[in-house]
């Protein structure tokens, strides 16, 4: 099963092809095909995971040469190590849950089958991305997930905001991808290969100049910045929430946005090789995390809060990975690599759960605004319980899975005091905004009675995935218990195992921070003993800054989009007047030239042809009378000619007399014909 793990992406691809080409008209069948294929991929991934555990994470690489050139060889291949196995499992689990959940959520959608085909295509791309063994392949799948993300964000394209969000996501990530491909080209040019292992070997052995490594690292990180919605390209992810909620759960929370983190983890050797690049990664991660967490505090759209939470958590992972790079570059041990990948896994489960729970809520009350909700716990028991579990998990409460991974991230920041302070602050904010969301949505009195009355628990296809994910949100983190001798950290690691001793002080501190965040939101939004409005009023400028998302969209609009539009207008003017003018002039010239040619054709060429015709007609007006149709006349001519020949033979001079005589006779006949024309005609009438 491990040997042919490359088959895993092809199951969903098969589903995509079959649905798009054959079963699109049968909605139920299409969805069952998609789900069965992703479940098949899941089962296969489980076997791969088992095999990897069996060989203690020993990597396996399979290569098919695609294009071979002396300067560069492009390969198609798979590279499976512990990280890949984990990612395969995460992606297939979340994809399975989301597809089953979508059965209920997308029920009755006019493009139901297409939705499932897109999900399958996405799953294919994501699995391909994970399984790739070189930068060339990962880039192809990278763009494919971008495409499917675009298709699914804009799935309800009748809504302008949705189609706009799709474009925004596509274009914004494309900026990062430009950096990514530049990084890849740098590697291709200087390392002469794109295979992970060969590139990393060259980096580790120092065959590449440190400057090149830094440059390549930073450019490749650009790709991660775009895809994982890191500052300053984070603006697309909140807008991406225009897509169907299961899509947000799968693509924009659990898997695709984690691709950036995966890329950084995969290319970790580059960052270990360059402390500067690693520092850039860590700082960007921290800024993103802080920024997004502070925005999430004040948002009222349930999905946007989760979106900013996602951005913040991704920043966490990126920061942990960056710090690992920095520490390792300086020769220190660091749990950052494990922390980042571990958090990637646990986050995938509880954030998918949060989104699916939010989807369940939206399905029930048909609004995204948490100010219009409240008291839903009475109507939606399962959704409420699972949502609270996920919130506790993301807040990092013992012993849920989020606690273990977040604890590792906090442990990574030991030795970087500034990072540590901000990390704890983010943990506090995370706990606060998550429970603000929970309390406003599920507890208290319904604020819009009408919506509350219509609310109902979602169908089983939606609640079962919630329960399954809740199970994972609690227990998935236990694979990384610090007391386990062969836990997550000795399975997924970079180069060598760093077995960190459990740091009880840190656990205590992070638990206190999380609990105080929950406590504050409990007081503000459950007990209402602290007025949230009063605090907002007191720190009005800060509140506004957060509420308006630090004005990023406005700044981008003013600094980039408007000047771009201005430039576009200028270019349009140039196009409309100069280029089009030139083109039109050429067109005008062509028409005139054609006119000339037409004249030539009509009068010269046709004239020659018609002239030939007229000439023939003119020449034959007399001679055609020779063709009288009378056989006897022809016979007479033949005999006259024969006699003429004989005469010519005997006396040439006599021949001319003979000819003259014939002509006179003929002429007299013709004249007689002309003068007696009427008589001839009259005769023919009578006889005819």
């Amino acid at each position: 099963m491990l040997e042919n793990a490359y088959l895993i992406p092809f199951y969903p691809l098969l589903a995509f092809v079959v649905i798009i080409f054959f079963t699109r008209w049968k909605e139920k069948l299409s969805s069952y095909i998609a789900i069965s294929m992703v479940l098949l991929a899941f089962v296969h991934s489980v076997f791969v995971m088992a095999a990897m555990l069996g060989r203690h994470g020993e990597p396996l690489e399979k290569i098919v040469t695609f294009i071979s050139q002396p300067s560069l060889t492009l390969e198609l291949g798979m590279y499976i190590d512990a990280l890949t196995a984990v990612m395969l499992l995460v992606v297939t689990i979340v994809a399975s849950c989301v597809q089953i959940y979508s059965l209920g959520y997308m029920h009755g959608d006019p493009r139901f089958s297409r939705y499932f085909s897109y999900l399958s295509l996405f799953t294919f791309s994501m699995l391909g991305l994970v399984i790739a063994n070189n930068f060339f392949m990962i880039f192809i799948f990278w763009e494919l997930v971008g495409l499917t993300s675009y298709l699914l964000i804009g799935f309800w394209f009748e809504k302008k905001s949705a189609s706009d969000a799709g474009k925004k996501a596509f274009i914004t990530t494309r900026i990062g991808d430009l950096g990514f491909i530049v990084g890849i080209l740098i590697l291709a040019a200087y390392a002469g290969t794109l295979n992970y292992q060969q590139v990393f070997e060259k980096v580790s052995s120092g065959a590449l100049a440190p400057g090149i490594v830094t440059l390549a690292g930073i450019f490749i990180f650009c790709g991660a910045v775009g895809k994982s919605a890191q500052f300053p390209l984070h603006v697309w992810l909140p807008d991406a929430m225009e897509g169907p909620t299961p899509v947000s759960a799968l693509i924009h929370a659990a898997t695709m946005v984690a691709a950036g983190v995966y890329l950084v983890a995969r290319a970790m050797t580059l960052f270990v090789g360059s402390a500067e690049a690693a520092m850039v990664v860590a700082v960007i991660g921290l800024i993103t995390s802080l920024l997004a967490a502070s925005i999430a505090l004040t948002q009222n759209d349930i999905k946007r809060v989760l979106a900013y939470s996602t951005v913040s958590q991704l920043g966490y992972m990126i920061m942990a990975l960056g710090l690992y790079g920095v520490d390792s570059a300086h020769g220190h041990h660091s749990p950052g690599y494990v922390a980042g990948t571990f958090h990637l896994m646990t986050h995938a489960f509880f954030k998918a759960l949060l989104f699916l729970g939010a989807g369940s809520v939206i399905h029930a009350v048909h609004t995204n605004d948490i100010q219009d909700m409240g008291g839903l716990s009475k109507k939606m028991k399962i959704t409420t319980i699972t949502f609270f579990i996920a919130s506790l998990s993301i807040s990092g409460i013992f012993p849920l899975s989020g606690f273990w991974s977040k604890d590792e991230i906090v442990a990574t920041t030991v030795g970087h005091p500034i990072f540590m302070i901000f990390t704890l602050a983010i943990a506090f904010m995370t706990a606060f905004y998550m429970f603000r969301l929970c309390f406003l949505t599920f507890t208290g009195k319904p604020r819009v009675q009408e919506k509350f009355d219509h609310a109902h628990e979602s169908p089983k296809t939606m609640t079962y995935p919630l329960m399954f994910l809740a199970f994972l949100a609690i227990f998935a983190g236990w694979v990384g218990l610090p007391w386990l001798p062969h836990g997550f950290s000795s399975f997924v690691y970079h180069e060598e195992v760093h077995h960190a001793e459990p740091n009880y002080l840190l656990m205590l501190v992070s638990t206190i921070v999380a609990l105080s965040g929950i406590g504050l939101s409990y007081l503000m939004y459950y007990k209402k003993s602290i007025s949230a409005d009063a605090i907002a009023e007191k720190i009005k400028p800060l509140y506004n800054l957060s509420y308006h998302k630090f004005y990023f969209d406005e700044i981008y609009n003013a600094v980039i989009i408007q000047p771009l539009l201005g430039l576009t207008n200028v270019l349009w003017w140039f196009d409309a007047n100069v280029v089009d003018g030139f083109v039109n002039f050429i067109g005008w010239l062509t028409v005139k030239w054609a006119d000339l040619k037409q004249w030539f054709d009509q009068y010269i060429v046709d004239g020659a042809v018609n002239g030939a015709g007229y000439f023939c007609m003119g020449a034959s007006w007399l001679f055609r009378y020779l063709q009288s149709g009378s056989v006897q006349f022809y016979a007479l001519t033949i005999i006259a000619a024969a006699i003429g020949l004989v005469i010519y033979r005997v006396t040439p001079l006599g021949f001319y007399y003979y000819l003259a005589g014939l002509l006179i006779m003929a002429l007299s006949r013709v004249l007689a014909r002309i003068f007696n024309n009427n008589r001839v005609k009259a005769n023919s009438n009578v006889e005819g």
Partner: protein
Amino acid sequence: MIMLQYLALAAILFAIGVFGVLTRRNAVGILMSLELMFNAANINFVTFNKFIAPGGLTGQIFAAFVIVIAAAEAVVGLAIVLLLYRNWKGINVDRINIMKW
């Protein structure tokens, strides 16, 4: 008898045939005149055979061929005449000028 007399006979016969072909208005008459011309040619063949190459039979054989071919030709000609009669209700060649320009 000398050769000239035979040839003169043939020439006269041929001239009568030509005259008939050119002046007759009746298609059957024309065909008959054609037969006269064939026979004039036959007389020539036989004459030349007798006087130029006595002992040989080439001329006679040729004459026999001409007779046969003339018969075949008369068949074709008469068939045409029949068709003309059906379409024109008459066989006067003056009226039959459909091959005109």
